[in-house]
Structure formats: structure tokens, C-alpha cells
């Protein structure tokens, strides 16, 4: 057992958030190469449980999680807590919601 787990930001090349229509927020996590993708996949770092913990949300607020080996990518989609542009909504383009994912722990195998 050695030290702290790595964080996703140390392995991913792109971590971004965006609208997928007015009712969903979607996150793309892309890696520069297959090796980094596999480290994260094999550590099971991006799961419903991990995402729910990072955002302090219920797991049923997560719409889907996809693994995309051909693109060395993961995709996470949430139901928006407030519909895009409605009163109380704070990010019309949904493009600044990615930060909690940057610090997801990636346990070493």
C-alpha cells in the first residue's frame, strides 16, 4: 500500500461538461492513449457510486455511464437538477460542471 490514489486529472486529457438538450448534463472524459484509459477503467474509478459521491447527489440522478474503448473515453450523463435556463439554474451552457470529476480518485492496481 503506497500513498494516496491518483486523481483523474492526472490521467485524463479532456474532462468537460455540456448540455445534452435542456434536461441533461453530459460529461466527456477522454484519455490521450489506451493505457491511461485502461488504468482508469481497471480501477473502476468512474462508477455511479463514485460520481454520486463526487457531486453529493443520489445515484438515480445519473442518467447513464458509458465506456467507449474505441475513443479511449467515458461518458457520464446526469439529469439536470434545474432545467436549462429556468429560474434558479446557474449554467445555461452547462459547461462549468466538470470540476468534481477532476478529483475522482483512481486507485492503483
Amino acid at each position, binding site marked *: 500500500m503506497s500513498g494516496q490514489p491518483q486523481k483523474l486529472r492526472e490521467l485524463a486529457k479532456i474532462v468537460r461538461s455540456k448540455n445534452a438538450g435542456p434536461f441533461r448534463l453530459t460529461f466527456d472524459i477522454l484519455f490521450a492513449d489506451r493505457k491511461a484509459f485502461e488504468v482508469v477503467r481497471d480501477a473502476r474509478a468512474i462508477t455511479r457510486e463514485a460520481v454520486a459521491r463526487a457531486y453529493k447527489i443520489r445515484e438515480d440522478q445519473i442518467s447513464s455511464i458509458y465506456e467507449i474503448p474505441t475513443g479511449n473515453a467515458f*461518458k457520464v450523463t446526469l439529469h439536470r437538477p434545474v432545467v436549462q435556463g429556468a*429560474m434558479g439554474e446557474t449554467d445555461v451552457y452547462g459547461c462549468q460542471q466538470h470540476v468534481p470529476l477532476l478529483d475522482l480518485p483512481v486507485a492503483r492496481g
Partner: protein
Amino acid sequence: MTKQTHTVLTPTGTLGYGFGAEAFARGMAMSPDVIAVDAGSTDPGPHYLGSGEPLVSRISAKRELTQMIKAGRAAGIPVIVGSAGGAGCKAHVDWTVEIVREIARESNLHFKLATIYSDVSRERLAEALSRNEVKDFEAGFQLTPEMVEQAGAIVAQMGHEPIVEALKAGAEVIIAGRACDDCAIAAHPIYSGADPALAIHMGKILECGAFSAEPFAMDVMLGILQPGHFELEPGSPNRRASVTSVAAHSLYERENPFLQAGPGHQLDLSACTFEQSGERRVRVTGAQFLEDEDYWVKLEGVRQTGYRTICVAGIRCPTLIARLDELLEQVRVETLEYFDDPSLHIGYTVYGRDGVMGALEPQAAISSQEIGLVIEAIAVDQTLARGACHHVSGGLLHLHYDGLYNTSGNLAFLYSPSEIDAGPAFEFSIYHLMKVTSPTELFPLHLEDL
């Protein structure tokens, strides 16, 4: 002989957001068969569909349409604009068409102009609802007759078919209302006999222009479709398409990376491959077209929730920051009681705490020495919204609380007047699928010779 190569030039990700003149000239030198661009989406929020105000300035739209139409006419190729004006409603289509007519007059250009509307009447939607031909897409609620009655503008996303009809009619410039982005870009290759699966997948990656290149930008992108595959190449020699940039864009702004639903069809992308076919080119294969049994279109509708007034202020005093939520709520409740109007809603956005992430912010504590506060009031009319917003800001300004040192005022107002009327406020109220009798039923085509 059927045409084997179909080249689409997309000048930018959104008409009016700009592109490089050199990149455009270089792209035109690659002999495209069509110039096709997307002009909007729901991404900027419900305001544009609700208000009918265009997304971009008239200056930007006219400048870019002029470049595209002049180049298209010189090369003898059509120009296609999808989701004209931003939301693609009638006001947006008419605004864009008026600019096109002006360009034709001023530049002495003559061409056949096609206008395709995409508005859905409340009556048509109510009928569909009564026939059980409406289903939820992602809204999370079923549509009711009352919601249809309350809706302002409603548009449906057209597929490639209405645009193909316009091309068959000889249109040389096509201004389409709300269109599925991918399909608007794919329409010309499909009209010319290309595989719809590859054409629509290519449209999906092209619709944001050079956002699928690296470095990404609002700029020119070309798609070259041949039997069995398509290739992507940016117009500017300073950018390249890479496997990562293109595959990444294939995921962009959508949920399911393997299945892409569109009007009347789904694309199965699970067998796609991306390979570097040149220093600046990526080759894509594998999309499969799955035709739906019935033809459903996606509807987008908004309702007006009232009129909005905002106030922007800063808070620096730690005694107020320490008790912020409690004091904001106290003034909110007092204001609601004072005005006693059921239409009135008051909200706060606290920058420096959760102003960006709202309910998704996992870190609850305020770690900043100052915060930015936006007060928002929405009410049945602007006068009440402004009155209530001023009552809240005034209430907070002069609020006395335990531990207060500064008896002169609690808010640093950014502007005078401290309240800013933001006009009508809208929210998305329809995001549903509706069954149609044909792919062109909702999308009437008008032709005129300019």
C-alpha cells in the same frame, strides 16, 4: 453515373460566430458540392425561442451569409442554413430570409431561394396529444392539454427530407427553420445519392465546424464522403483533424455514444472506426442507419413564466457572509408577504459559493472573502418584478442583524440603477416527440426567385 464523392464545406459551428477568410478560400478551392451551416440549437437556452430575438447580431449574420452566398453562387453550389436565427421559429426564419433578400439586391445576385418553416401550431399538437401520438423525450413529464395551451412558440426538428425536397425543386439557397443539425448538413449528400448513415454521421461531426479539429475553433471544416467512409479535414492549414479530436466530437453534446436518434431514424455508431488517413485528415467508417417504423419528430417549446428584473451586488462584510442564507431568506419572505402576489418568485445566486454549480456544488462552505449576489425577481408584469427586486435589494441594504458593525448599508451595488429589467422570462416546457404523417408534413416549403 452516380456521384462517388460528396464534399460538404461547413464554414463555422454557428452561423454568425465567425470563420477565417483564408480557411474559407482554401476550403472553396477543394471544390465542395455544397456549403451547409447550422445556425442554432437549444444550447443558448429558452429565451430565443420564446422571444423570437435572433441569437447573433444582424451584422454578423449578414457578413457571413454574404460570404457564403457569393462563394456559393460563384461556384454554382447550393448554400444551406439549418435552424436559422437560433431557434428556427418563424420570426427567426423571416429575419434570416430578409437578410438574404437584402444581400441579393445589394450584390445583384439572382438565385432560387427556398424557405422552410418548422413551427408547430398548438392545435396540431393538441390533436396529436388527443390521439396519443406524443411521448416524452427527456423532459421527464407527460404533456397535458394545459401545457400545450400555455406554450408560446413550438418548433419541430426537421430531418433531411424537407431540405432534399427543396434541392429537388432547384433551390440554390435554403433557409431552414429548426433542423436536426446533423441532417441539415447531410441533406445535400443524401440528395446526391450518398449513404444516409455516413452522411448523417459526417453531419454530426461537421455541425460544429472546426470544433472537431485541433486546435479547435469556430472555423471551416470539410467532410468528404465516399462509398464506405468519409474523411474530415479542416479548412485552415494551421489545424488538423486527429483521431482524438474527431472521436471526441462524435460524443459531443449527446448522451448515448453508440446510438444517435434523429427524425425518423436512429444511427448505430457502435461499429465505427476512426483512423488517421493523412497528417490533417481522419477517416471514419461504420455508421448504420436504422429506419424507425413510425416517423417521430422532436418538439421544442417554451412558455413565458413572467417578467424578470435582476440586481447585481457584492458583499464583503464577514458578519453578513456568516449569516447569509438566513438573512437572504428573511428578506425574501418579507418581500413575498409585502407584495402578496402569487405570480411573484424571488431567487438568489451566490457567486463565491455555489453561483456556478448550484445544486451540484459539492463544497457547501464559503471560502471567499467576498461574494457576488444576483437577486432575481420574476412576476406577472415588469413593474411588479422591478418593485419586488428593489424591495429585496433595499431590504438587504438596510437590514439590521446581530453582530452588525457597519450601520450604513450591507450591499455594494454594481450599477445605478441597481435594478435591471431583463424583460420576458421563459422556460422550456415541451421537449417531446410527436408522430407525423410524413417527414415533410410539418415543414412547408416556399420558393421564390430572387
